[in-house]
C-alpha cells in the first residue's frame, strides 16, 4: 500500500483514484452535510512529503471539520444523475440510491463507534458523544434506533432526527419510523411533477439500512414523502425489520438482554 501511495496522491483529482486515503473516502462516502470533509479533501490533494499513509493519520482529526454545503449539494446531484442513467422507473431509481447509501452505512457504523470509543477514552471536547463509557453494540431494536436517531444523525447532519415512532398497528410490530422534517439531501432538489413519488432521501434510507444490517438487524428501509404545512420536505424513513430479528427480539427479551 505504501508504494503506490505517493503518485496517487499527487495525481489525485477525481474520486476514482483516491487511493486508500481517508480523505478520498470521506469525499465520496460522507457527502451528506457539511461534514468534516473539507479540510481533508484539501489535504488529500497535497503530496504527502513524509510518506505518511492513511494509517498514520488520526481518525478523529476531521471529526469537527465541516464541508461546504454547496459542494455536497453538487456531489449529491451528480450522484442522483448518475443513478438515473438507464433506470426503469422511480422505484428502480430509489433502489439505486438506496444501494449507494448502503455501504456508507456499514462504514459509518465503524467510524461512529470508533469515535465514540476514542472520545470517551481521551475525553475530548466533543458534544456528540452520548455515552461516556465504551459504547455497546446494539443488541435490541430500540438501542439501535436510538443510535440511528441520535449519534448517526448527528454525525451526518449535525442534529438528531426529529421523531422516532413505533407502528401502532398490531399487524406490523416490526415497523418503525424515523422522521426528518427537512432532510438535508433534498434541500436543493426539486422533484419534477411526474416523479412526485420520488424521494431522493432513499440514499439516506440506504445508509440506515446499512447500519441496521451491519449491526445484524435485517431490515428494509424506505423513504416516503409526508409533507406538512410547516415542513413541505418532511420525510419518513420506514424501517421494516425481518422476521428473524423479531424472533431474536423475543428470545433476548426473555433472556433479559437490554
Amino acid at each position, binding site marked *: 500500500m505504501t508504494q503506490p501511495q505517493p503518485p496517487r496522491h499527487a495525481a489525485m483529482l477525481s474520486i476514482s483514484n483516491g487511493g486508500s486515503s481517508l480523505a478520498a473516502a470521506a469525499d465520496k462516502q460522507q457527502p451528506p452535510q457539511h461534514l468534516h470533509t473539507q479540510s481533508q479533501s484539501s489535504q488529500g490533494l497535497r503530496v504527502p512529503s513524509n510518506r505518511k499513509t492513511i494509517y498514520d493519520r488520526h481518525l478523529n482529526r476531521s471529526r469537527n471539520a465541516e464541508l461546504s454545503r454547496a459542494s455536497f449539494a453538487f456531489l449529491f446531484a451528480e450522484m442522483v444523475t448518475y443513478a438515473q442513467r438507464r433506470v426503469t422507473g422511480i422505484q428502480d431509481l430509489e433502489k439505486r440510491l438506496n444501494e449507494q447509501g448502503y455501504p456508507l452505512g456499514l*462504514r459509518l*457504523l465503524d467510524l461512529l463507534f470508533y469515535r465514540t470509543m476514542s472520545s470517551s477514552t481521551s475525553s475530548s471536547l466533543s458534544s456528540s458523544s452520548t455515552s461516556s463509557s465504551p459504547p455497546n453494540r446494539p443488541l435490541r431494536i430500540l438501542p439501535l434506533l436510538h443510535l440511528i436517531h441520535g449519534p448517526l444523525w448527528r454525525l451526518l447532519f449535525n442534529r438528531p432526527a426529529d421523531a422516532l415512532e413505533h407502528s401502532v398497528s398490531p399487524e406490523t410490530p416490526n415497523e418503525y419510523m424515523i422522521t426528518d422534517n427537512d432532510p438535508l439531501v433534498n434541500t436543493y432538489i426539486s422533484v419534477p411533477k411526474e416523479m412526485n413519488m420520488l424521494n431522493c432521501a432513499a440514499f439516506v434510507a440506504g445508509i440506515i439500512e446499512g447500519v441496521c444490517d*451491519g449491526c445484524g438487524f435485517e431490515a428494509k428501509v424506505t423513504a416516503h414523502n409526508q409533507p406538512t404545512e410547516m415542513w413541505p420536505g418532511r420525510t419518513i424513513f420506514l424501517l421494516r425489520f425481518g422476521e428473524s430479528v423479531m424472533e431474536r427480539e423475543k428470545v433476548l427479551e426473555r433472556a433479559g438482554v437490554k
Partner: protein
Amino acid sequence: MSYYFTVLSPTDVPLFNIAFGTSKSGGDGIARFRFPDTAQYMNQFIIHSSLDVVEEAQWMNGNMYLKHIDTYPPASAYISAFLTPSGARFLLLHQPPQLPTNASSATTGSSSLLGSSFSGSAGSSSRASASSVAANPTSPQTEEAVRQFMTEVYENYVKTVMSPFYRQGMEIKSSVFRSKVTAAGRKWL
C-alpha cells in the same frame, strides 16, 4: 506465548491472518505453536470452532471486546474475541509456550533492546504488565493487554474500511495494515 490473529467477516470469511510470537520478556516475536509445522491448520480449526461461542456471546454481551471466550484444552489454546459494530470479528488465539523454560529465559536486557528498536511508542508501563501476560493467559493483565491490542487493530481496521477501494468482506492485503498489526502485537502482547 504464541499468537494467531484473524479478522473474520460477518460470514466467517477470513479477511486477515497473522501469526506472531510475543516480544515481551525476551521473546523474539516468532510464533511457536504446539502443533507440528505440518498441522498449522489447527489454528484455523480452533478459531473456526470458537465461532460457536462467539455467536452466542455476541447477543448476550453488547461490548465490543468480549474477552477470553473459549479454550481448546488439548493444545491449551485460548481465544479472545473483539467484535466490530459492523459485524467483523477479531479473534486472537494465544497459546502459552510448551516449555516453561522458554518463558523463564527472559532477560530484561533483550526486551529493552527490542523496545528501543521498535518505535518509542511502546511505553514502559506496558512492558511491566507484559511479563504477566506471558505467564497466565486468563489473568486480568492479559485481558487488558489483549483489549489494548484489539482496540489498536480496530483503529487500523476502521481506516482500512474507510477506503473506497475496500468492500466489506474483502481480504485485507495492505502491507501497512499488516505492519500496523505487527506493531500492535509487539507493543501489547
